């Protein structure tokens, strides 16, 4: 190979686009580019050669760090090999490129692992720490914004009745009873922000709590309830979410996860679906704990008022049995059995009626219409 001292090449000087057919001479420490007429076009030390991207039949060289884009193209494999042998920067096998690439892949995977760990442990922990510092005023506004977005989603229209129950003349008595019940629960819970509770005309047996003290009971839940303690238990559970500021925490968590998986990682093909699914998995695992704590809160609150703390468990089971499999009660998920077991550990010491029978009957008719 050492016999190879010179060969043909194509040279562009980087100042004009003119094509020069040249002969390339390999000296001890530099490569000479000589025009067909014999004069020297360039002298490039081997240490300054830059190996540039080209198709596999060509070795393309430039001068490293030079602002002038002078290019030498070598098509003769033997000459290319001889240059490769002399210049450390020429990497025809791509070995050093591969090493660099392996490093990138390794650290990217490491970054992904740490991002996932942050998603699983860091984001909920940060949301937990941050939530107490969110001012109630801000939570209130957040609640209003979320409410404005969520209401149109819930309100599927038709029927010709107001979306909220308790407005029509015949529903007023029920509304008064509910207000009284909520007032007692709220007073016992000693919250730092007022509850805004409404019954919505939706057939599902469900209830939700938003940030800022918004609680929605659905018509289906009222219909399924057999005692006032069951409704009170559900409301107490939702008040638990409000007291724990779960809605705000979940907004913080969702925001954090969106940022982590959406912005930082970016979108490759179908990336959004992956991100949404990842968030669903992570969030449903957060929410189990949240539900358990809200249950515990509800049990304590019911005990304080002398209601039956186990009524919440009773309505949970009834709804679980009757709802469509897709629609899960009181937010998430399958481990109703575990929740029920925890609720049923509660013992009520004293018993007091939360509403009179007449008030309870009125409450049951809160969505009856005019």
């Amino acid at each position: 190979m050492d016999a190879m001292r010179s060969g043909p090449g194509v040279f562009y000087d980087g100042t004009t686009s003119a094509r020069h057919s040249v002969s390339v001479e390999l000296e001890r420490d530099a490569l000479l580019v000589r025009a067909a007429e014999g004069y020297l076009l360039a002298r490039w030390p081997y240490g300054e050669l830059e190996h540039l991207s080209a198709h596999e039949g060509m070795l393309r060289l430039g001068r490293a760090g030079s602002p002038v884009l002078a290019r030498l193209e070598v098509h003769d494999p033997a000459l290319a090999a001889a240059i490769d042998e002399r210049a450390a920067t020429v990497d025809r096998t791509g070995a050093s490129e591969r090493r660099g690439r392996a490093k990138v892949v390794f650290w990217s995977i490491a970054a992904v692992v740490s991002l996932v760990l942050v998603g699983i442990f860091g984001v909920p922990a940060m949301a937990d720490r941050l939530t107490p510092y969110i001012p109630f005023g801000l939570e209130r506004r957040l609640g209003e914004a979320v409410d404005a977005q969520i209401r149109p989603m819930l309100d599927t229209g038709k029927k010709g009745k107001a979306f909220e129950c308790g407005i029509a003349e015949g529903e007023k008595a029920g509304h008064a009873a509910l207000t009284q019940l909520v007032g007692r629960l709220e007073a016992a819970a000693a919250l730092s922000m007022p509850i805004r509770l409404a019954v919505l005309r939706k057939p599902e047996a469900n209830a939700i709590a938003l940030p800022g003290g918004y609680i929605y009971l659905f018509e289906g839940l009222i219909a399924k309830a057999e005692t006032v303690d069951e409704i009170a238990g559900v409301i107490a559970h939702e008040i638990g979410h409000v007291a724990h500021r779960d809605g705000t925490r979940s907004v913080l968590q969702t925001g954090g996860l969106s940022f982590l998986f959406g912005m930082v990682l970016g979108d490759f093909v179908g990336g959004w679906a992956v991100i949404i699914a990842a968030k669903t998995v992570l969030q449903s695992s957060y929410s189990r704990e949240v539900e358990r704590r809200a249950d515990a809160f509800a049990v304590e609150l019911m005990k304080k008022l002398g209601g039956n703390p186990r009524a919440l468990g009773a309505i949970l089971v009834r709804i679980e049995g009757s709802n469509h499999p897709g629609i899960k009660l009181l937010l998430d998920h399958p481990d109703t059995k575990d929740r029920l077991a925890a609720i049923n550990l509660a013992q009520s010491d004293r018993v007091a009626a939360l509403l009179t029978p007449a008030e309870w009957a009125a409450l049951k008719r809160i969505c009856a219409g005019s």
Partner: protein
Amino acid sequence: MTVLDVAGPGSGVPSVPAVPAAPAAPGRPGIGAARFFGKQGAYWRLMIRGAILLLLTLGIYRFWLATDQRRFLWANTEIAGDALEYTGTARELLIGFLIAIAVLVPIYGGFFLAALDLGIIGKLSGVIAFVLLALFGHFAIYRARRYRLTRTVFRGVRLHQTGSGWLYAVYSMLWWTITIITLGLAYPWAQASLERYKLRHTYYGDVRGRFTGSGTSLFLRGFVMWLLVVGPLLAGLIFAIGSISWTALAEAIERGGDNVIGRIESVSPNFGAALAFISIASTWSFIAAPLLYPAFQAMMLRWWTSGLRFGEMAATSRLRTAQMYGLYLRFMGYSILLLLVIGVLGGAVFGLAPSLLKVAEQSTLAEASGVVTTVIIYAVVMLAYSTMYQVIVKLRLWRLSFETAELSGLEALDKVNAAGVPSSAFGEGLADALDVGGL
């Protein structure tokens, strides 16, 4: 993703020549051709390896994959006997992306806070965000083009782009608004105007580009297609509007409540027929649009290529519409094959599923791992599909767009002086972060 925009990759079976053709080309002086000799097999390897690494790194590898793709495409494309060179690096793209994140995060934060505002700002925040991000998107497209051009070197001289990204973004938004208002009729003039802006600010060394394609000629060529796709729908709409008794409509709306459409129907006898006609027409458009798409794309590519000028140099496209259909038919064939493979694999998995599902119902962990598995399968399928699209459609399109171009005035190639400096990859990063096809 072409050097100058428009299409993407092509394919190639031909062997790599040891020595490329001498200076100009055979035949008449100054007349030459472009060719592409990248091997499809090599591109498959590059893309499949890239897809696997994308999956493992949740997309971080995209900067490196995009750079590899471009290096491959550029290096294997030869114009008048000389191959193109891509000098961009993955590191630049990564930095561009990081800058874009630094710029966008406060903006997103601002939108989040604005959405909490209950006043007029809160109500308008959605609209403002849309307009602003659309503007950013067009800006990003223009600036990403600048990055790509300044990383393209031909015969030791780089391409570059001047002009203002914001001005382009404003033009682009205005033209798109007009295009939407005119139901697409203004599209040819919009394209002509935007391409003129882009090419007028594009240079190869000191040679300025220009675009000579006219909106009117594109309109005349494409009008039949527009009539076929949009025409019936438009006729249906006009028919419906004409059939409504307006006084009855006003009355119906005044009374409000449900079933406004029902009451309009009862007083305007033809309205029902018009609605039926509209639904048939939209079904027709839905079928016709994809069927005509290759013809549309071929027409656009011919028009665009033939309008390119750099000083004395000019291009003419000899692309045949059938070639474009061939390309998509091939892709459909491969898609069906992929679906069959997925079907067989899916069948095998669900054959085992009942026993797995029983376990899944029991424990939370099993349930979560079920979701994770579904996500992984979904990601793999989507990546397989996109890899296939990149190789079969984009690569072939790239090859076709170069190989069907006939170039003239190439004598001028010998006396171009170098000019221009490399630009930052901010535009690429922005385009990537905003999902407007940066990489």
